[in-house]
């Protein structure tokens, strides 16, 4: 009998995620994949999975799964959500063994937005276009988890977990400071420095497509006109005509027509994916390569 997870509760949003779908932008399909790639990769590493196996991305906790068909080693990373195995507190950022029939519960995290639950062997649902990631914009990949789902777990990898615990990240910085490189379309707004001079607030409309900000306006330049569609990427800070920036995350569109005034450096994009609605954000210009 293969090991599997039965979903008992999902919280606001729980998704299967992996490294996404590279190389398909030409047919209008973006990369997608785990929103916080660092936390996702770390969870896999702790349970000694090879890179790329699918894990669960849990937004603001609320996930409960039952382990069926055998015992299972799991690891929770990312937003430090309290983890319970059969109602007993368990450690995050560490391998945890769950007995057959055991219940794993992920409560809402005090800080951060997305937690990653890796299972040894990976979540083995059917891939779509080479990936098990759910892309909310393209509506591709495994459906969001629902109560009653049964998720198969892949075969146990040959490597064994080699660590007891890894350092958890900190998500309590306030405001969150994201480094960004100016351009490519900073000339299309009146004053791109409004971006770094303003303390922004992440809005309730923040999702896997982008972190939407309010609290000021980066005005479009007089007579700037309309920009022909151009490619966008994770970390791009796009400014629509209302002046409120959007930082694109994992499920961003492939192309867009609003000016991108700056691009968050790759190392800080994962931090952006952990910003909760209502939290404050500032940007700091850094030079590119």
């Amino acid at each position, binding site marked *: 009998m293969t090991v599997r997870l039965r979903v008992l509760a999902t919280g606001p949003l729980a998704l299967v995620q992996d490294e996404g779908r590279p190389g398909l932008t030409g047919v209008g399909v973006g990369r997608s994949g785990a929103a916080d790639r660092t936390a996702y990769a770390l969870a896999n590493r702790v349970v000694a999975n090879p890179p790329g196996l699918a894990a669960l991305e849990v937004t603001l906790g609320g996930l409960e799964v039952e382990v069926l068909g055998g015992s299972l080693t799991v690891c929770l990373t990312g937003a430090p959500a309290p983890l319970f195995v059969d109602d007993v507190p368990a450690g995050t950022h560490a391998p945890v063994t769950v007995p057959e029939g055991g219940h794993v519960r992920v409560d809402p995290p005090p800080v951060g937005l997305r937690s990653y639950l890796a299972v040894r062997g990976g979540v083995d649902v059917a891939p779509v276009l080479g990936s098990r990631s759910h892309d909310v914009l393209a509506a591709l990949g495994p459906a969001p988890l629902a109560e009653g789902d049964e998720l198969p777990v892949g075969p146990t990898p040959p490597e064994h977990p080699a660590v007891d615990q890894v350092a958890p990240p900190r998500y309590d910085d306030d405001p969150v400071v994201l480094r960004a490189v100016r351009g490519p379309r900073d000339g299309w707004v009146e004053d791109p420095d409004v971006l770094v001079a303003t303390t922004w607030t992440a809005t309730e409309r923040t999702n896997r497509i982008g972190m939407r900000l309010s609290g000021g306006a980066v005005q479009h330049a007089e007579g700037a006109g309309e920009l022909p569609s*151009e490619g966008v990427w994770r970390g791009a800070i796009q400014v629509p005509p209302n002046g409120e920036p959007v930082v694109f995350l994992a499920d961003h569109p492939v192309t867009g027509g609003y000016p991108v005034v700056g691009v968050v450096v790759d190392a800080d994009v994962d931090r952006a994916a952990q910003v909760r609605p209502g939290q404050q954000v500032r940007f700091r210009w850094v030079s590119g390569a």
Partner: protein
Amino acid sequence: MSAPTFLPYGDAGVLVEVDDTAAVLRWSDALQAHRPAGVAEIVPAARTLLVVAEPGADLTELRSALGALDVPNSGAVEDAGPDAEVIEIPVHYDGPDLADVAQLTGLSEDEVVAAHTGEPWRVAFGGFAPGFGYLSGGDPRLEVPRRDEPRTRVPAGAVGLAGTSSGVYPRESPGGWQLIGTTDVALWDLDRDPPALLRQGALVQFTVAQSPGAQR
């Protein structure tokens, strides 16, 4: 043709800005033929190509490799080369905006159809939705603005015009293009390999569908 401009795109890549969509396709073809080391992804668009680097790649080196790329100076959108795939899309020219397009272009409805089917288009880039291709080239008389009010529901298979582009909606979605017809051809089918009918660089020939269209 003027030299391309290399614009910064964070520490993730370079945005290559060129003269027009024909130049994008020439660049795209050149990058397919000689992909510089350290390139993770290439996203062509109307007048730009976003070149995304592999993590840790040296952007300065990438920029010089792009600058040294051998890209032809001329060639029209339709110059897809002798091996280019030609995709035929039969269309029922019964779209709700056909009369508006005729009025906007000063052509009769029949002339709009003749113009749309008269010359091949080329898939310049993707985006908007899985399977959607922005088609360039075609008859320049068909340039029309987007609709003032986007429709909340455009059916799958709707064939539209906007700006200098044409396109076919792969699935039901909102949309602001001027709709001139519909096709029964599936633009996106996950059970097909590859799922997208239109791939960047391919030629598209619209034809007048002979059989009566499915009721929509």
